[in-house]
């Protein structure tokens, strides 16, 4: 049973998706999805535990075909870490989202919603677990196509337009990626990442390898929404159903970042991609631009979901900044932030979902007086805001600390200064929401508000408490991230 786990966590969601498509009863589908997502989480956590315990990667030969011909599923520390993240968020969003899905999505589509949700989760887990470059593309498209569908389920007509926008951009990204893989395949004749890494060593300076690398990085950057390729993100986040936004924000971009790291560190190797190409410099500039452009734009948003979406653009900048710092500390910060940002942004979007449900809109001006009527939601928002700012004692601080330390190791004081400055911008845009919610009286003629449903509040608060807990006890996030960094860098140096 244990050695089948890598296939189980991919195949079971797939089968469950098909079953959901057959049944289409809301309650049954939800239960199936919940059980499957939780099982995936348990499976992922078990595998991560195994890898940590025995210090040995789990490798699985799909269909019994040995790599490099067959497809290999591979779980190392980094993959296990991201798998746990994705399956955890998927489970939590299912618990959280049931009420809002019922409200926001037409009744006859509920079964399809859970089908797509499971497919999306299957795709995301697949990207992480597969050791095959082409297979990663297939899973990427499985997750993206189901994601476009999920976004288009939003009740606003703008959701469809946003989904279309995302579809075009996402497909360009995926196709770029696959062109890059094709070029590498042409010169090496293999698609297995480990094998690719080995065979590429003598070929790294050939134009085909460099072009392939460029295509892959640009393609993945589109999927990551790295500035300035982020244009699809704000609309997609803003108009998708609340539950979808929480899931999307917490997982989709993170998984793409994982894949980017895989290519930079495992396939091309630290010695080439970081030390001999200008990639770190380029990523550095783009990350800083992302941080500031994202935060500045967030300042001027009326729609809080959109505001948080732009803040995601900025936060993604932090993650890629860690890559650009090109040292172990920075990379640790970046890995830790993958997890931390997923937790805090997930929680914030969950709370916004509750607001959308009660207030009816997510416009800032309609939220006046929400602090009094929905204290749990709004205090949660405050706490999440602290974490985004990076107040010590929350997860946001831990990641920023590592990023700052990483920058200092390189002697880049100005990056630390910029990091702090960007925290201030976060303070301002989160502060706007809090001020309106707590200090503006609710208009007399406005509909009275009450607290969001318990399931939503509880899930969001579990995440928020995790924000605080993981801000103090960093043994899981930082512990695993540091080990994973050793693997990533150790494999290359």
């Amino acid at each position: 049973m244990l050695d089948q786990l890598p296939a189980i966590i991919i195949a079971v969601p797939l089968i469950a998706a098909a079953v959901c498509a057959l049944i289409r009863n809301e309650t049954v589908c939800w239960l199936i999805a919940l059980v499957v997502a939780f099982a995936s989480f348990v499976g992922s956590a078990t595998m991560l535990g195994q890898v940590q315990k025995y210090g040995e990667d789990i490798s699985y030969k799909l269909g019994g075909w040995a790599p490099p011909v067959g497809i290999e599923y591979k779980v190392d520390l980094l993959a296990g870490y991201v798998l746990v993240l994705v399956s955890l968020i998927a489970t939590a969003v299912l618990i959280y989202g049931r009420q809002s899905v019922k409200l926001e999505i037409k009744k006859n589509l509920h079964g399809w919603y859970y089908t797509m949700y499971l497919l999306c989760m299957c795709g995301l887990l697949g990207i992480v677990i597969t050791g095959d470059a082409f297979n990663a593309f297939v899973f990427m498209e499985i997750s993206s196509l189901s994601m476009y569908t999920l976004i288009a389920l939003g009740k606003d007509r703008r959701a469809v337009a946003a989904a279309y926008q995302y579809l075009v951009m996402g497909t360009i990204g995926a196709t770029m990626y696959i062109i890059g893989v094709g070029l590498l395949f042409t010169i090496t004749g293999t698609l297995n990442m480990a094998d690719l890494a080995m065979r590429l060593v003598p070929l790294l300076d050939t134009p085909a390898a460099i072009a392939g690398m460029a295509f892959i990085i640009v393609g993945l950057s589109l999927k990551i929404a790295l500035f300035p390729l982020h244009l699809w993100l704000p609309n997609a986040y803003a108009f998708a159903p609340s539950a979808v936004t929480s899931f999307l924000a917490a997982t989709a971009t993170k998984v793409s970042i994982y894949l980017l790291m895989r290519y930079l560190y495992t396939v091309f190797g630290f010695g080439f991609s970081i030390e001999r190409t200008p990639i770190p410099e380029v990523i550095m500039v783009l990350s800083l631009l992302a941080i500031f452009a994202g935060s500045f734009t967030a300042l001027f948003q009326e729609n809080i979901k959109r505001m948080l979406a732009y803040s995601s653009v900025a936060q993604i900048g932090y993650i890629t900044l860690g890559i650009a710092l090109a040292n172990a500390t920075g990379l640790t910060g970046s890995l830790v932030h993958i997890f931390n940002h997923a937790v805090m942004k997930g929680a914030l979007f969950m709370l916004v979902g509750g607001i959308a449900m009660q207030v009816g809109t997510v416009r800032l001006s309609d939220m006046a007086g929400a602090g009094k009527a929905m204290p749990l939601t709004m205090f949660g928002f405050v706490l999440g805001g602290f974490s985004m700012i990076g107040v010590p004692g929350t997860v946001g601080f831990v990641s920023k600390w590592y990023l700052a330390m990483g920058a200092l190791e390189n002697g880049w004081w100005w990056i630390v200064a910029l990091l702090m400055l960007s925290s201030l911008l976060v303070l301002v845009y989160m502060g706007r929401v809090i001020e309106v919610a707590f200090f503006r009286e609710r208009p007399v003629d406005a509909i009275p508000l009450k607290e969001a449903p318990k399931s939503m509040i509880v899930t969001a608060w579990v995440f928020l408490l995790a924000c605080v807990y993981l801000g103090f006890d960093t043994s899981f996030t930082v512990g695993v991230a540091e080990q994973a960094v050793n693997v990533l860098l150790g494999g290359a140096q």
Partner: protein
Amino acid sequence: MRGHLILRVVSKILIPFLLMFALYVQFHGDFGPGGGFQAGVIVAAAFVLYALIFGLRAMQKIISPALLEIAVPLGVLIYAGVGVYTWILGGNFLDYNMLDSHDPSHGQHLGVLLVEAGVLLTVSSTMLLIFYTFAGRGR
């Protein structure tokens, strides 16, 4: 399309051959280019032709959208079912060698056959469903 006698007669003759060809492509997939994907598209093409000539309603009388909505996930389940079955037999996911205890290559044959059947079902019904969806809009 009531009046286009030639089209109707020709298509009536063509459709059985199209389906036949699809089956050929399907089962020849073991020995030459072909397989469930191609066959599925050809099957769907035959039905689409029918719908174009005789109208969407006539087509939907034969194969209703509800049926297709069941057929799509069913194909996936056949595919995945094979994988699960190999698990039960103690192998890896989709390890066809497990399917026949005497001769692994027979197992491979059997496995591919079953999986391709699932693919045929899913691809043909998906293509048809897409056609229905687009053709059924705006009425």
